[in-house]
């Protein structure tokens, strides 16, 4: 990344270094802006679930996960016990084990304190920004990655706080705001579907989720369907990898492309090369 911009000073063009904080802020901007509406909705929903503005601010800083906070709000409105909320949340957040471990190779040699600081404010969206930067930009440093996390955290928590404050002034149909969670997850599903097998596993998980939830009468069904469906996906892929040299030729691994799929992901690059 070159941070040099031309500026016209004293009649001559001078190469001027853009300050680091500003350069990183520019990279974080799309993410920070997209957090505003979702953060507002989340704050409104948490307010409706009984959180006061301080609790909403606190949860948005220490949990910092749209999905998790929406889940807290919607489980509280159906009077779920605390333990049940926390267990469901834990399984929801388990995906960060994957995200964290995939970023960890770029954080080799960092201090324990830095790893702690970095993992506290890791989430889906700033992960996506940082992963792409690390993979495509050799000059991208862990410090700058941490700065992206902090900018997004700031935008998220302020939006939550404002949502919580305007939530008390509004009367809102909860079912409607609650749909923000479903929409957020649908967005993440569509963004994750790269080939036919992922689509198949997604559909399988949906069917299993219905079966397991009706059977267990609890959110435990979510966990079971996730574990079973992801394991089946893993097994199918392992089997195909054994029998085929180039898995991208297999019909299950044909790409599912969207019209706006212009952003090249790391997975695309590794399968192409």
């Amino acid at each position, binding site marked *: 990344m070159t941070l040099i911009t031309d500026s016209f000073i004293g009649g001559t063009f001078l190469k001027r270094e853009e300050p680091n904080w500003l350069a990183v802020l520019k990279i974080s901007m799309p993410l920070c802006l997209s957090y*505003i509406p979702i953060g507002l909705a989340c704050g409104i929903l948490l307010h409706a679930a*009984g*959180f006061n503005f301080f*609790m909403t601010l*606190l*949860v948005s800083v220490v*949990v910092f996960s749209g*999905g998790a906070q929406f889940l807290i709000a919607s489980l509280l409105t*159906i*009077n779920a*016990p*605390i333990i049940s*909320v*926390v*267990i469901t949340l*834990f*399984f929801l*957040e388990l*995906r*960060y*084990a*994957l995200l*964290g*471990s995939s970023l*960890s*190779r770029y*954080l080799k040699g960092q201090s324990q304190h830095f790893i702690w600081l970095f*993992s506290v404010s*890791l989430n889906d*969206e700033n992960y996506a920004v940082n992963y792409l930067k690390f993979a495509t930009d050799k000059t991208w440093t862990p410090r700058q990655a941490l700065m992206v996390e902090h900018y997004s955290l700031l935008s998220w928590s302020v939006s939550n706080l404002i949502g919580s404050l305007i939530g008390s002034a509004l009367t809102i149909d909860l*079912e*409607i705001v609650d*749909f*923000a969670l*479903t*929409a957020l*997850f*649908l*967005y993440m*599903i*569509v*963004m994750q579907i790269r080939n036919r097998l*992922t689509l198949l596993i*997604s559909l399988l*998980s*949906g069917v299993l*989720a219905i079966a397991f939830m*009706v059977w*267990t*009468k609890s959110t435990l*069904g*979510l966990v079971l*369907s*996730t574990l079973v*469906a*992801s*394991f089946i*996906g*893993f097994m199918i892929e392992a089997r195909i990898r054994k029998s085929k040299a180039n898995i991208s030729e297999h019909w299950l691994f044909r790409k599912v492309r969207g019209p*706006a799929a212009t952003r090249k992901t790391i997975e695309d690059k590794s399968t192409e090369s």
Partner: protein
Amino acid sequence: MENILSNIPVLAGTVVNKMDSWDHLVLIILAAIAAFIPRYLPMLFFSKREIPEWFNEWMKYVPVSLFTALVVKGIFITTAGYHFVPLGHVNQIIAAIIVIVITYMTRSMALSVISGLIAVFVLTVFL
């Protein structure tokens, strides 16, 4: 699972109607721990060692499976009693299709969520 939970007197008794700010604080602290462990431990562990390939390959399918399960729960499962209602929320089904199309076309998180909220609002009012 719910039966086991109701045997824990303190926690099972704290529901939203009776919850005060202290209960919320306890919930937030526990939630923060639940959110922190999966983010921290693997990162700490793997910033020193290599990640086993099979673990990565398996975890690759976890997010998409979980997100689908959560969407299905939101649209097709009743919150009270966990019954399967295929057409219980037609407004949400139509809005979900709109969200999928918008995401597919734009790949923008904010646009997808906002259009979903508008769609479900309009459909709830007019259906």
